């Protein structure tokens, strides 16, 4: 496991980090995204999806819990578990079906899922510092 730190002065830098991360992903990759509200998790996902060729809107999955994309023959699921109160809910909504070992899964607020999640391949933690963000990127 290796972890590196990176300073993101603005939104553009967050988008670039997302694009860099995209290049490292393979089918079955599981990326955990940590950080408070407004830290830039969904912005990072937008940069990642753009780099993978997605041109449409990147909607926040906060309400729908998951937004799915099909990119270059690979399924990608973008989760936001912010509204989960109890890991048992994930079972009730069929979350397990998404973790099929083939799709790329990007998971915001993974701590709400308890032990339900598959093993992560990458983890990115974002922290707001003044106008910028401090990113901590772990390859598991």
């Amino acid at each position, binding site marked *: 496991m290796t972890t590196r730190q990176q300073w993101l002065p603005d939104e553009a830098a967050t988008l670039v980090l997302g694009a860099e991360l995209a290049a490292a992903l393979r089918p079955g990759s599981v990326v955990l995204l940590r950080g408070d*509200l*407004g830290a830039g998790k*969904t*912005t990072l996902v*937008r940069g990642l999806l753009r780099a993978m060729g997605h041109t449409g*809107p*990147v*909607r*926040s999955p*906060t*309400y*729908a*819990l*998951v937004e*799915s994309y099909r990119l270059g023959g690979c399924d990608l699921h973008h989760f936001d578990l912010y*509204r989960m*109160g*109890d890991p*048992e*809910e994930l*079972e*009730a*909504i*069929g*979350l397990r*079906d998404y973790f099929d070992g083939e799709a790329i899964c990007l998971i915001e607020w993974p701590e709400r899922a308890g032990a339900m999640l598959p093993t992560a391949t990458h983890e990115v933690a974002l922290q*707001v510092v003044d*106008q910028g963000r401090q990113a901590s990127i772990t390859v598991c």
Partner: protein
Amino acid sequence: MRILAIETSCDETACAVYDPGVGLLAHALFSQIDLHAEYGGVVPELASRDHVRRLLPLVRKVLRESDTPRPDAVAYTAGPGLAGALLVGASTGQALAWGWGVPAVAVHHMEGHLLAPMLESPAPDYPFMALLVSGGHTQLVEVAAPGRYRLLGESLDDAAGEAFDKTAKLLGLGYPGGPAVAQLAQQGRDGVFRFPRPMTDRPGLDFSFSGLKTAVLHAVKSHADDAQTRADIALAFEQAVVETLAIKCRRALEQSGLRRLVVAGGVSANRRLREQLAQLDADLFYPRLEFCTDNAAMIAVAGALRLQAGERAGPQIAVRARWPLAEL
């Protein structure tokens, strides 16, 4: 004709019984039912969104309340939404219809929202413009006639209601965020903060509220944390959202030449939004709040329309997690 409607696309488990000739006969959300009565004294632990265990008690309740031993058709939400959640409603709806020997019909969740104003009196005449503005959606849709919809604009990131909820969180307020932010904004001083009106300086009817959340975050972090400052931020935020929505509505009405505007979704309850929209050159229609958020009454209305058009669900149980309105 009595239609049993089932909605399980996201958070809510909801059922309704509706007769197009008479009106709504019964409707309920799971949160309203008396578990103690339904389970005969043994109250089970139910996880939120556990549609499997929530649905049948609710079906029984609306059938009982409307004195409907057997409905004439079953309508269920087939998408868009969470596949696992949708499948509960679709398979239950199909199974009940099969058991009763009556037709089933698959309904698009957003068509339900667009037709919810038809539950009110007076209902709007067609054509009309609809602004759907809630925690999950921010959309402008032109409704030319029943079944004829055109998506003119939508949020490219966060929904307006979601921006309210997240701003509430940043300001240390509770959930749901809309009423809490609006209440705090009443103590705000005009002009202390000013946030951008996203995407109003360019043509088009799309929305973006994610940047506004970030603007609030920076305002909170870079100013003294006192009650007056929080109120000032709440007011500036509410003004920015409301003005953005009003600008886009005015633009949509002007572009389409329509003079009727339906405003639905939880954010439609916002008083400042209603005041701003009242200044538009249009007749305004607001479904009552319980039919603005997810419910089964609206699914029944859309289902009735589809049944009258001769649509029937096939024997296979199919849902569509992604289902563009344009494909209806």
